[in-house]
């Protein structure tokens, strides 16, 4: 089943906005650009999943790398603490993982 990445990006943005609440408007520009980059990495993971050329360790590394990059950008704003930034990044990836989980039966996504 093909993944609608445009919808996934919107859902991920909504998830981040939900965690950040009023601070979302402050970081929207930077966070949206980073979310687009995160979705591109997720699409690359999808291609690797189709080719069966990704291991659990590699997936976990890519996932955590993107979460760190997103939380780093969010935390660079004074109003957002590291815990909230990490929660927001995790919420974004949960949306991505759900999409991959639905489309591909990679054992480590469950």
């Amino acid at each position: 089943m093909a993944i609608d990445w445009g919808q996934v990006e919107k859902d991920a943005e909504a998830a981040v906005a939900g965690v950040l609440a009023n601070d979302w408007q402050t970081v929207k520009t930077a966070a949206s650009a980073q979310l687009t980059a995160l979705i591109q990495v997720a699409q690359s993971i999808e291609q690797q999943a189709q080719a069966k050329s990704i291991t659990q360790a590699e997936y976990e590394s890519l996932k955590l790398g993107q979460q760190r990059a997103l939380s780093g950008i969010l935390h660079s704003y004074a109003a957002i603490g590291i815990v909230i930034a990490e929660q927001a990044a995790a919420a974004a990836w949960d949306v991505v993982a759900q999409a991959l989980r639905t489309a591909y039966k990679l054992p480590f996504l469950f």
Partner: protein
Amino acid sequence: MTRVYSIARVACLMAMLTAAGVAGCAAPAYDETTDKSISTLQNDIDSELISLASLGERIERLRNRDDAASKKALADALSKASFDANSASYDKIDLDLTTVRLRIDAEPNASTENLDAALGSLRDNLFGEKSLRDTHSQEDVLHSAYVETEKQTLDQQLQALLAYEIVLKKGASSSKSAADGSQ
């Protein structure tokens, strides 16, 4: 891809500069040594990742061949792609990163905290839990697609640092031009 990362890095840069402005401190000064140190770091990371991706592609291609020459080439590529064969490169990158961090921390200014956070995040992705090195150590040989995707993330983080230095450099050039013009 590049355009999106450019937007992201400029947005990150704006956050760094805004933080410096809000703090009400003097604008950070351009430091050529820091600039060169970041470039060295980027070159070493890129060289390592390009090499690993190339070896990964060669391994994936050779795995399907049965002739003796291909088997020998595969063994050679597997050896070069192994974690042990690359541990010295990781040590060099670690040293590069420490050099940049020390240089930035030696002359603290309003942006140091944000730069340290950016470097910390980069270090986590290179050497922390489930990082590039951690994954390489665990898997011994990495898939080329993984390396290329990991490179996207690391480049994005490095470009934010380089963009910051470019802005400082332009500011330094403008100040010098203004000073020369007033003489």
